[in-house]
């Protein structure tokens, strides 16, 4: 059997703040999440439960306090070179136009300029932005910037895609469009996806599997649900099927207590 694309094994992350390490905060405790090659896994949980922390650990941007990360069976050291990361916030370089932003990863790899430009234009077209290559990020709408970011990541053909609430800043319509586009791009070339969201509907509509995290601190998985809605899916139609509603009810039932807990903690 081939090793999982991504395995987070018994991950614990404790942050120390204050001058002499006075305040400790354990965001994630003893968490194991395994993602098979080509699998789309969503991680949902109440706000502040350490979802982004987990993703940063998987990306190699953050070293866990305990536990190991394995990428295709090999322990991860440094930045995860086989993963692409789609950030929640704008991560484009404001001083490069859309095309230059898309090709920057290729430039880092030393791909010749001509080849990079050609591939970049191809990706611009694939994310529906042909003709917008010379626009700077501030001249693009939020949705367009997300498309550029998506192309910027996918052009490098990563085997693992890490997504941190990438669509949370978009309006509902744009968001559904982007979700459908993501599914289309993903089904054309199946990568392993870890998709972080606090939106359960989005998680069910997109994923093969949904992992529910408990409220922080010391959050950990409290349930895993296989999503057996047939593919290919249209996210807005999938939301209306009976199976979707059943799954939603089931997962929400498990999540609700945690959400309330997380909310109560926020009010303190």
């Amino acid at each position, binding site marked *: 059997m081939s090793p999982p694309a991504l395995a987070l094994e018994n991950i614990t992350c404790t942050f120390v703040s204050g001058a002499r390490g006075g305040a400790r905060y354990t965001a994630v405790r003893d968490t194991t999440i395994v993602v098979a090659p080509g699998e789309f896994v969503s991680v949902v949980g109440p706000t502040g439960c350490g979802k982004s922390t987990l993703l940063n650990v998987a*990306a190699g*941007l953050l070293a866990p306090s305990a536990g190991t990360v394995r990428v295709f069976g090999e322990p991860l050291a440094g*930045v*995860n*070179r086989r*993963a*692409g*990361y789609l*950030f929640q*916030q*704008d*991560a*484009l*370089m*404001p*001083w*490069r*136009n859309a095309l230059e932003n898309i090709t*920057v*990863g290729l*430039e*880092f*790899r030393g791909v010749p300029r001509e080849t990079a430009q050609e591939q970049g234009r191809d990706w611009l077209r694939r994310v529906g932005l042909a003709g917008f290559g010379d626009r*700077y*990020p*501030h*001249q693009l709408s939020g949705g367009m910037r997300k498309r550029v*970011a998506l192309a*910027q*990541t996918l052009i*490098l053909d990563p085997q693992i895609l890490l997504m941190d609430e990438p669509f949370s800043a978009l309006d509902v319509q744009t968001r559904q469009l982007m979700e459908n586009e993501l599914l289309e791009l993903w089904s054309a070339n199946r990568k392993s996806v870890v998709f972080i969201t606090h939106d359960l509907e989005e998680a069910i509509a997109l994923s093969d599997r949904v992992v529910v995290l408990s409220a922080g601190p010391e959050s950990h998985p409290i349930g895993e649900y296989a999503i057996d809605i047939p593919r290919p899916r249209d996210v807005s139609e999938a939301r209306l099927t009976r199976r979707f509603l059943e799954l939603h009810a089931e997962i929400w039932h498990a999540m609700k207590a945690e959400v309330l807990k997380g909310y109560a903690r926020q009010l303190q």
Partner: protein
Amino acid sequence: MRASSSSAGLRLAQAAVLAGVFALWHVLTVPGILPPFYFDDPHRASFFFGEPLKVLGRIWHWFVGGDIYRHLGVTLVETLLAFAIGTVLGIAVGIWLALAPLASAILDPYVKALNAMPRVILAPIFFVWFGLGIASKVALGVTLVFFIVFFNVYQGVREVSPVVLANARMLGASPRQLLRYVYLPSAMSWVFASLHNSVGLAFVGAVVGEYLGSAEGVGYLIHQAEGVFDINTVFAGILVLTAFALILDWIVTLVEKKLMVWQPRSGETERI
């Protein structure tokens, strides 16, 4: 139409202010136009404040006779050298200190002290070190430009968005590439923000240096004239320097517009 006619009106009003100032200057200084009301001697006013017609005549002679070009050239070379060297040093040291927290912490009080020091007092030392030629003026200008650029670059590198940085790392940037693709462009935007200031200060360094000791340059001309109480030539030098500074500023604006297209301008709408 309307916008252009109102801007023409604005230009006209601005020219009128200039003409008004010169007229007032003329009336108040040329002996015999007004009865003396402050100085007893009617020639005293023109002794202290010059006469605009003589000042303009002096400028005319400079440019037609060709005496001024050598001096302007020297001042310009000093300004550009001070600007270039100060900017390069400022960028290099700014990036270094921003990326090396320990060095930055150690050097912090000294950087503050050097910046707080009135650096014009370094001029005599530079004269001793570099002589009375161009080098000492360039050195003075560099000390003025360096700190402006340095602080801006330092700030710029410190305030690079952590998300943009993490994104570049995930896209496979090596530390060297991070410097070239993220830190430098980010710092450059701050350098450009301070360009008007730093070009202006390079100019100040050059002129003040010339004024304090030299054998050429516009600052030297002014100093010479002052030595023989030729107030008209002093004013002529001041006017030439002012016009010159305006031209430099205008060039900076052009460069800035060309290089900073990626920055959003407030209220900008874009035609699709």
